[in-house]
C-alpha cells in the first residue's frame, strides 16, 4: 500500500503523470475509482481483493483525457487491457504510465515492451471461482445450460453496465445501437437480452482480458463474465493466442492457420 502511494506520489511529483487513476476505499464496503491529481491525495490510494473494476476503461473518457497523461494503478487485467487497447490502435506508446501491481510490489512501466515482459511472467489463469463456474456449466446437459442462461439473461434490464465497465467496449456506436438494420432488439425482453449477451461475448472473442469487470458491474449479479471468459479460454486453447499479451499480435479472429481445427465441419 505504502509502495503504491509512494510510486504514485513520485509519478506526480516528477511530472511523469498528471493524474493517477487508482482505487480507493468507497462506501458500503465497495471500492471506488479515484483520480489523484496532487501528491497529497496519493494517500487515498489503496489496493485489495475487492478492486475488481478495470480502470483501463477510463483511458478513453474525454473528461479524463483532459486531465493529462494518466498513470494507471494496474493489477494484471488492467495491464492486459492496456496492451490489448494498444494492439487495437486505441493508445500509443507514451500515452500513459502504468503502476503494475503484483505480489505487493509496484512496478512503474512506461514502455509497451516492459508491460509485455511483465505480463509474460505473470500467470494469467482464471480465478478459481470463475473456472469452477464454467466447468460446472460445461458439465450440465445442453437443456440445463439453456435453462440456466435463460433464467439469468431474462432478468437483464439492459442498463449496459457490463459494456460501460469493459475497457474493450470502446466503440462509439455499439452494435446494439445500429438500427439499419436493428440487429439487436432494443427492449430488454428475453430475445433482446439473449442476442445482446451472445453478441457481446462474440465481439470480445480474442479481445477479452478476462478481468470479470462486466460481471462485477452487473447490478443484478448476472454472471455474464463467464460468457466472455469461456470464449476467450476456448480461443486460447484452440488457436493459442491470448488477448492483452502483446501489442504486435494477430487478433485471433482476424488471422488463421491452414491447419486450424475443423472437426465440426463436414
Amino acid at each position, binding site marked *: 500500500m505504502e509502495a503504491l502511494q509512494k510510486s504514485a506520489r513520485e509519478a506526480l511529483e516528477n511530472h511523469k503523470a498528471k493524474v493517477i487513476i487508482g482505487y480507493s476505499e468507497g462506501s458500503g464496503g465497495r471500492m471506488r475509482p479515484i483520480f489523484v491529481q496532487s501528491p497529497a491525495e496519493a494517500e487515498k490510494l489503496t489496493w485489495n481483493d475487492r478492486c475488481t473494476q478495470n480502470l483501463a476503461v477510463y483511458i478513453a473518457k474525454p473528461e479524463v483525457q483532459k486531465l493529462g497523461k494518466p498513470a494507471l494503478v494496474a493489477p494484471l487485467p488492467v495491464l492486459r487491457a492496456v496492451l490489448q487497447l494498444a494492439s487495437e490502435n486505441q493508445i500509443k506508446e507514451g500515452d500513459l504510465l502504468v503502476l503494475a501491481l503484483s505480489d505487493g510490489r509496484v512496478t512503474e512501466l512506461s514502455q509497451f515492451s516492459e508491460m509485455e515482459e511483465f505480463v509474460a511472467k505473470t500467470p494469467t489463469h482464471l480465478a478459481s471461482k470463475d473456472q469452477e463456474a464454467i466447468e460446472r456449466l460445461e458439465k450440465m446437459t445442453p437443456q440445463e445450460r439453456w435453462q*440456466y442462461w435463460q433464467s439469468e439473461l431474462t432478468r437483464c434490464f439492459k442498463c449496459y453496465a457490463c459494456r460501460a465497465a469493459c475497457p474493450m467496449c470502446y466503440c462509439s456506436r455499439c452494435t446494439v445501437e445500429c438500427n439499419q438494420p436493428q440487429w439487436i432488439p432494443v427492449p430488454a425482453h428475453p*430475445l433482446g437480452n*439473449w442476442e445482446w449477451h451472445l453478441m457481446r461475448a462474440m465481439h470480445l472473442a480474442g479481445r477479452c482480458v478476462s478481468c470479470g469487470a462486466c460481471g462485477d458491474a452487473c447490478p443484478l449479479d448476472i454472471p455474464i463474465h463467464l460468457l466472455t471468459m469461456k470464449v476467450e479460454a*476456448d480461443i486460447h486453447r484452440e488457436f493459442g493466442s491470448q488477448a492483452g499479451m502483446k501489442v504486435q499480435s494477430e487478433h485471433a479472429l482476424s488471422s488463421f492457420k491452414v491447419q*486450424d481445427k475443423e472437426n465440426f465441419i463436414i
Partner: protein
Amino acid sequence: MSEFEPKIVAFVCNWCTYAGADLTGTSRIKYAPNVRIVRFPCTGRIDFMLLLKAFSQGADGIIVSGCHPNDCHYTSGNFHARRRWMAFRNLAEFMGIEVERIQFSWVSAAEGAKWADLVNSTVNRVRELGPYDAYRQMAASSWQ
C-alpha cells in the same frame, strides 16, 4: 397430423457451395425441399448474427457452407470464417443452443451430390430433433 417439416436456412458462398447446389440441379439430383439458400459472396461475409436471426425467426436448422480450405475464391475468407464458427459454435453450445441444428460444411462447385446429401442429412437430423421450440418460445415470450 402431418409429420413435422423442419425449416432449414442455408448460408452459402457464391463460388463453391452455391455453384455446387447449381450442379445438384443440373445433375437432377433430388433432395428435401425444406432448405432455403441465402447467397453470400464468401463464407467470410456470413455474420454470426444472421444465424441467431434465423433461429429467432423460427428456423429449425441452419446450414453454413462454403469452399473447402485452400479453395476459397478469395483465398482466405473461409479460413477466417472457420475460426469465427469455432468460437461461435462453442459459445452457442455453452449457452445451451442446440448446436446440432447448425451444420457447417465445405461443398465445392463439383460436389453436387454432396450438397444433396448435406441437405438431406441435415433435414433428417433436424426432423428427429423436432421443431426448435425452446428458441421459438424465447422469441415468442418477447412478444407478450
